[in-house]
């Protein structure tokens, strides 16, 4: 019988070692199928053998796995199963790995050790019967250099990077880049100015996430600008923190801003302070601070969860100008309902470019717009193609 894999006779190991000559003669004297230990029950002609059996290193993975594929033979009884066994040549001591139902036709063996050569054997079994085995070519698992299943993501990333670098290069060359007005960012100076006039403090809340959250990093960049303005105007700044890493970063940024503005005398260590690591304890503390001290301007910029509405509503009740910013749509409605200005989604990330007007940063915003246009075009193309029955189009964008 011809199958995709090797028959057991073909799979017999080559023994060349002189001291094992006697054993070799013994092996040659025995039937070919005896090269490897047999299972119970013995092969039966009543069950056909699977075909096209192949064992390969599982592609795109970090090693430790072998992918087995085969085609089920026709005419298997209802209670049939496919038995999978493994051996390490030249020993050929077959060990059961798994038993799968017909129809699966693939198995990912994840107990393999990288660099160890294995042979796999499959056969159909049913009740007391066992069909003839089919043995794979030798295979060894390894860790791969490229995750081919993420090629689409890789292309998109490379394309976006290229657009970004070209846009930055163009911005550096002096090309004028239009940037639309963002009311929330324009209102920052106005809010701080008002706080200065009435002699009340500016409260800046950088969200409750750590510095591994990109919204927090964006928030800290905006804090840098806010601190420079408060230093310039001589307004009091208060930055309560929930996350310790954010606290350390915020403190460094505020200190640098006061130094950069030439007002280190106005900087106090307690401006940036740590409150607690608990979400609702932090919320209670900051809400109480709002109620007691009644800041004139409140910034709620960063990543917020359930506390967003509690903080924003409390701030609203104190009559402060409130500017919020968040990229996550789940909390945005609360900010829109309760704050005077809200930075929605990408506006949060555009803030540093908008506020500093540095050409390089503006260039990156242009790249962002180009990428957005490409995404919109791909979306329209998807609508058209899917409407005309090309339903596999969305698969181009699937990643694993």
């Amino acid at each position: 019988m011809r199958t995709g894999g090797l028959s057991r006779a073909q799979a017999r190991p080559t023994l060349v070692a002189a001291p094992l000559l006697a054993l070799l003669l013994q092996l040659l004297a025995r039937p070919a199928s005896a090269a490897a230990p047999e299972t119970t029950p013995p092969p039966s002609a009543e069950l056909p053998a699977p075909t096209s059996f192949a064992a390969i290193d599982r592609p795109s993975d970090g090693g430790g796995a072998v992918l087995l594929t085969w085609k089920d033979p026709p005419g298997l009884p209802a209670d049939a199963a496919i038995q999978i066994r493994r051996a390490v040549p030249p020993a050929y001591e077959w060990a059961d790995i798994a038993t799968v139902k017909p129809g699966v036709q693939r198995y990912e063996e994840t107990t393999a050790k990288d660099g160890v050569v294995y042979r796999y054997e499959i056969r159909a079994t049913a009740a007391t019967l066992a069909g003839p085995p089919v043995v794979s070519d030798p295979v060894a698992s390894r860790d791969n250099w490229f995750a081919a299943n993420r090629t689409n993501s890789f292309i998109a990333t490379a394309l976006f990077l290229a657009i970004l670098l070209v846009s930055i290069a163009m911005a550096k060359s002096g090309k004028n880049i239009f940037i639309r007005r963002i009311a929330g960012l324009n209102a920052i100076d106005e809010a701080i100015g008002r706080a200065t006039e009435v002699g009340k403090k500016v409260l800046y809340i950088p969200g409750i996430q750590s510095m591994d959250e990109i919204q927090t990093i964006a928030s800290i960049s905006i804090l840098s600008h806010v601190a420079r303005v408060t230093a310039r105007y001589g307004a009091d700044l208060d930055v309560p923190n929930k996350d310790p890493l954010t606290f350390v970063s915020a403190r460094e940024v505020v200190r640098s801003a006061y130094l950069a503005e030439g007002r280190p005398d106005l900087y106090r260590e307690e401006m940036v302070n740590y409150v607690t690591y608990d979400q609702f304890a932090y919320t209670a503390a900051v809400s109480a601070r709002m109620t007691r001290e009644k800041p004139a301007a409140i910034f709620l910029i960063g990543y917020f969860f359930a506390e967003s509405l509690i903080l924003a509503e409390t701030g609203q009740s104190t009559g402060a100008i409130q500017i919020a910013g968040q990229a996550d749509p789940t909390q945005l409605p609360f900010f829109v309902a309760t704050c005077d200005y809200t930075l929605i989604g990408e506006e949060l990330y555009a803030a540093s470019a908008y506020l500093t007007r540095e050409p390089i940063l503006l260039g990156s915003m242009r790249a962002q717009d180009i990428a957005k246009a490409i995404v919109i075009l791909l979306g329209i193309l998807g609508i058209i193609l899917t409407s005309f029955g090309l339903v596999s189009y969305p698969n181009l964008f699937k990643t694993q």
Partner: protein
Amino acid sequence: MNFEFGRVALVVLFAVLPVVGIALGFFAPALRARGPLFVAFFAGIIPILSLYIPKRFLSGEAGMRPRLDQWLIIVAGFALLLGIVNVIQNGTRKVARREKGWPYSVVLLTGLFITGGLGIWGAISGQGITSLPNGSGTPFKWIADNFFLPLQATIFALLAFFMASAAFRAFRARNTEATILLVAGILVMSGRVPLLEFLAAPFPPLQPAAAGASQALGKLTEWIMQTPNGAAQSGIIIGAALGAASMAIRLILGIEKGYLGLGGGE
């Protein structure tokens, strides 16, 4: 000692390189400012590479990527210590100077020292912080169960009232957009709350009609949530994702420096 590549590379990138940078910084301050940018570059590029390169030294269980996450936890642990010191400093200063609201600081410091002390004592004595060997709870757990959790739940429960007041303000029909919001809000609430069945309950002849109307409202609610609302959310998410990707690349390349307090141009 296991000198695997990923581990050695991490130590070189995030321990040796910054120390060398700081040392060089004593002679050249401009160079010292670049140190964090190098660290940010490698910290940013490693997770991206691990997404496309499944090699074990990079993405394996003991590879650079998971180790980087572990290092973040260690660094955060030290930062938390700084945070606690800051809380104690601010609290004691307020109490010593009798600043406005100083009694709150007394409560805060008392809670911090008692709870923290019991937690540390539980850890040092080997009893743990949750339950004693005889199965009963530790004093630390008692405080958590009887003070901390009820207070936490209380603050969370306030959300319901804040939601009502925010909805009242948001749903005032001042202009066309607010009116659309109001109508959509009423429809969604009606579809999510079985109000019609409740009102029709005392009148059996009206119940089938109420059930039918409720079902129709439910479908309308689903349509509003999935189609106009879903489309708007997708737009925000796509824009935000591109913004985040753009910002991430700016951070990795050292273009965006505001988060380090190095931003200029103002």
